[in-house]
């Protein structure tokens, strides 16, 4: 007991500030959010809020837009997580091959979308996929490649609009996966490969037997982050389609944002966000348990 207190006393100078800020700006708001979800919350005068029990949650189960948003969210994750991961891993593996020159240059170029502002790239893709022949993507598809006969009204249909949203999200995320894997690849000691070479393994077999197993912790980290990122995606949909046409491209996030900040249904909005939080938790729980425990050891 005394020893514990003494240990806290020693670590306090390092932890207090960070812990305090996290409590104030992350953990408390989280608890408060869950609390609000059981109320018909009046943001102007919180004291007038009415306790409604699970009414907000029941409402969600009968709201058809929630199902659309949920479906879109799951599809978004199903497309963008493997998409970013696969392309990012391919890029990292290629760049890391000894024969490749200009490594720094390629890494820089592939990373550009990652550091670009979401606001900028969202509008950029909205314009790239503009209707008619003036949209450059339509121009490429119809006038240059002749793949489609007529320009596509990308943002006027649910599925084509989703394609635009997926495209910008994958495009922007590849570089991040690549950089993470490049760092991990470069941190593998060369001695391991040299040892393997002496034992007669090289090229593909040393990739399979040394590189892949050592990448496992990084894969767990990257995939969890991609899943969380996918479920928290928001700004690209808000700026490209605003959930339209007819609420058909909403993600859970954009829909709950609309409920909260356009209709001022804060109770309902927070209930939706709690449900989304649970969803994320379920999808990452299995991996979360090994998260942080697994470290690279040579």
């Amino acid at each position, binding site marked *: 007991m005394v020893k514990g207190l003494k240990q806290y006393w*020693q*670590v306090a*100078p*390092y*932890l207090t500030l*960070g*812990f305090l800020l*996290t409590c*104030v*700006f*992350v*953990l*408390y*708001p*989280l608890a*408060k*959010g869950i609390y609000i979800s059981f109320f018909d919350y009046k943001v102007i005068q919180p004291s007038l809020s009415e306790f409604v029990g699970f009414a907000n949650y029941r409402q969600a189960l009968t709201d058809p837009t929630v199902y659309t948003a949920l479906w879109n969210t799951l599809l978004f994750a199903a497309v963008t997580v493997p998409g970013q991961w696969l*392309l990012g891993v391919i890029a990292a593996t*290629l760049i890391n091959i000894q*024969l*490749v020159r200009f490594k*720094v240059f*390629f890494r*820089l170029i592939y*990373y*550009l979308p990652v*550091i*670009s*502002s*979401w*606001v*900028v*790239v969202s*509008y*950029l*893709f909205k*314009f790239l996929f*503009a209707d008619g*022949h003036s*949209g450059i993507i339509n*121009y490429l598809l119809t006038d240059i490649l002749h793949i489609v006969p007529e320009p596509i009204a990308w943002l006027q249909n649910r599925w084509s609009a989703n394609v635009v949203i997926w495209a910008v999200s994958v*495009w922007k995320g590849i*570089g991040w996966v690549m*950089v993470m894997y490049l*760092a991990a690849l*470069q*941190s593998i000691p060369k001695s391991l490969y040299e040892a393997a070479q002496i034992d007669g393994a090289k090229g593909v077999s040393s990739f399979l037997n040394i590189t892949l197993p050592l990448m496992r912790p990084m894969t767990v980290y990257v995939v969890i982050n991609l899943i969380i990122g996918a479920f928290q995606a928001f700004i690209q949909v808000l*700026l490209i389609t605003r959930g339209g046409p007819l609420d058909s491209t909403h993600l*859970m*996030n954009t829909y*709950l*944002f609309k409920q*909260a900040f356009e209709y001022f249904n*804060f109770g309902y*909005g927070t209930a939706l966000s709690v449900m*989304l939080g649970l969803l*994320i938790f379920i999808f990452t729980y299995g991996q979360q348990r090994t998260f*942080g425990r697994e*470290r*690279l050891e040579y």
Partner: protein
Amino acid sequence: MRRQRGLTLALHMALLLGMLLVIGPFVYMVLTSLTTDNFSLPSPYKLMHSSKTIQNYIDAWNKNHFSRYFVNSIGISAVTMVLSLFLATLTAYGFARFSFPAKEPLFKLFLFSMFVPALLNIIPQFTILKTLHLVDTYPGLILLYAGTGVVGGTFFLRGFFERIPTELEESIVIDGGGKWTLYRSIYIPLSLPAIGTLGIFSFSGTWDEFIVALTLIKTESHRTLPIALQLFQGQYATYYGLFFAASMMALLPIILIFLIFQKQFVNPNMSEGSVKG
């Protein structure tokens, strides 16, 4: 030998192809920003053949207090970055090199908050800042950014700190240095690549942040760049050249910072070789 040359060529072609896909949208943006009088999206023909000018950049810089918002964003992002790095290194060091009761559960609690959708935290965060009389102020905005960034930064750095061999501490301890000295003269310098990387994440994250700034900042002259861009898009909806010029100017500082820092980009094996058995 010949086979290897073919392979090298194929590898570079693949990387170049990928590069075209990555960089194509940027090329389009640059070309459009250099083309004037675009009341509709410029046709590809016009993009390639019309004369290029930087007039859009001059116009965008002088419209709608754009320059003011630009300076605001630089200040806010820089201060947030410094504060975040300070907090993250401290907290990560605490978790990496101290033992205390309930350390791992506490860390788990930290991590757990990363899995929660951040969006609707805005309402309670807003009420807290209101109680502190910090709504519509830069300190409020910066505190909120730094406060919500602690967890991610701590998680990112803890691993790096733990991989630094404790043998390195010996010489300092022998000289009578305490934990604080260790933190400053071993853990910070040896983790510079990781800290630099985190700094880039922090800066570009703040630079790009949209929703919190939109809800928190009311005074027009206090706005940040992403909001300026959104206003541009709304107000000059059909002046594509102007909008893309503004966008380019918003991207440039981040790209510059990345270029400066990128040599130090994450290299977790920095401490390898500093201890010889």
